[in-house]
């Protein structure tokens, strides 16, 4: 597994991973805003834990006197320590790279090479928070993230990790030309459509995008392309440019699909 870092890689917020199956796929990298939000959620969770424990300790202290107050203060201090330095390490190790905040926002910490996080990686990246949060409110970390093409803060760089988004994505419906082209529409086109593979791909992409476009915008785009294709085919089209492209595509596919 390796991540190619050549200059051919497109400038995008993604990181390529090659799996043991020799398949390459792209992880979507998490930007500062999403990570800050996850941080706030985790902060809230930690504050809640402290609050609950402090209330319990207080009640116990009132009930049992000074001896127990000392002990519970000691325990509270250890809990503070654990929440400040250990919270992320424990969560990320147990949930392979996710803390509660990251879970909510579908984030995950993985290594540069796309492998799961090792506990030592997690310790390093989270200890380095002490440097990232300097001088205040993670300013240094944000600055470093902004300069890095993988949005890594200092801790990520030392530990060799990155944070990725595992959002669920959707794809469009099957392409349907509705209503089906009439024989009359088809007869107006030549049997063989002189369009290159790239042009047909672009046409298909456009038609698949139509349901997500505003009708006026879809029409506008079609009106740019339709006259160009019509001139190439030596036909004249009247009226609906989008309809013309649909029928054109139907005829082209009709032949290739056989």
């Amino acid at each position, binding site marked *: 597994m390796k991540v190619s870092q050549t200059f051919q890689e497109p400038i995008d917020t993604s990181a390529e991973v090659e799996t043991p199956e020799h398949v390459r796929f792209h992880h979507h990298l998490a930007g500062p805003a999403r990570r800050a939000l996850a941080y706030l959620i985790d902060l809230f969770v930690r504050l809640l834990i402290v609050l609950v424990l402090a209330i319990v300790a207080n009640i116990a202290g009132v009930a049992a006197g000074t*001896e127990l107050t000392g002990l519970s203060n*000691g325990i509270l201090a250890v809990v503070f320590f654990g929440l400040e330095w250990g919270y992320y390490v424990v969560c990320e190790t147990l949930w392979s790279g996710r803390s509660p905040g990251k879970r909510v926002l579908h984030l995950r910490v993985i290594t540069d090479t796309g492998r799961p996080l090792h506990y030592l990686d997690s310790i390093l990246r989270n200890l380095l*928070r002490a440097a990232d949060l300097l001088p205040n409110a993670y300013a240094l970390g944000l600055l470093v993230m902004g300069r890095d093409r993988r949005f890594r803060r200092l801790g990520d760089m030392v530990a060799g990790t990155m944070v990725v988004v595992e959002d669920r994505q959707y794809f469009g419906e*099957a392409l349907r030309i509705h209503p089906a082209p009439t024989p009359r529409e088809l007869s107006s086109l030549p049997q063989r459509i002189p369009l290159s593979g790239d042009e047909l791909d672009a046409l298909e992409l456009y038609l698949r995008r139509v349901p997500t476009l505003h009708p006026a915008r879809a029409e506008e785009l079609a009106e740019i392309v339709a006259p160009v294709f019509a001139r190439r085919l030596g036909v004249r089209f009247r009226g609906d440019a989008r309809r013309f492209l649909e029928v054109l595509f139907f005829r082209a596919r009709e032949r290739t699909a056989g």
Partner: protein
Amino acid sequence: MIPQDVFVAQREPEWRELDLLLGQDKELYSHDGATISRIATLYRALCGDLVRVQSARYSPDLAGYLNGIAGRTHSALYGARPIRAFGFTGLVLREFPAALRKNWRFFLLATLLFVVPWIIGQAGTMASPSFAKHVLPASQLEGMAQAYSKGFDEGRMSGVDASMAGFYVYNNVGIAFRCFATGILFGLGSVFFLIYNGLTIGTVTGWVWNAGHGGNILTFMCGHAPFELTAILISGAAGLRMGYALVATEGRTRIGSLRASAREIGAMIVGAALMLIIAAGIEGFWSPSSLPPQVKWGASVVFTLGVSGFLLFAGRSRKLA
């Protein structure tokens, strides 16, 4: 080439099945065996589909959809790595001392950066009390002198011990961690924290000494110092090592150089953290106890020998020994 929609119609049920299995957001090991192997099968088929979609230039949203599922499955399948206690003890008992010996120069440098300001602080304060007031506020110094004036012949209430032990964990381990982490700023943060802490402790010791309680404070420190001071020096050394990796890259990129040294840096800081937790226990319960100074100093000798013996000899290759 199959048209996209025919391909999708054929393959979509399996994608949906995989998506559904992952959607439960459970860790992989909490599924039963049959489900896990089903996920693996579906994942391999999906990887094939992804390659196909990419080469056939189907629409980007389809590629994105498959890409997303592939990423999530990859994380789930290859994410199930249990923590092995054996790996951790190996890290602490063998790798940690070995990494420290390998980086002895940084440990030496950290020691100098800590001890020299200590001596300056203590000597300066003993020579002229006004020196101390430039380092720390007078009220804090008075508080320290007050705290050590009585000695520990009567011990403390055990509740106070527990509370102080907790405070030491929070405060001292935090100091050591910050001393380490800020080493990423080309070592400067570690340098600052080492000098600052050395100077502060030296000044306090000098002040308490002037007040006539020097024996008390040293007897208090002698128990946990072998763990605590050594661990702070190790944290500082790990921070300096990190800063050095950024400067002396030996032909690598800065990040590459950092990564190459990350394992030993990690081993050092984990070891230091454990030593600090041991130190906090001693500092909270043993050091302020009412045991006679002879016992405390005897224990200090034993601790010192133990710590140095461990750091010098543990984790050496058996062949060389």
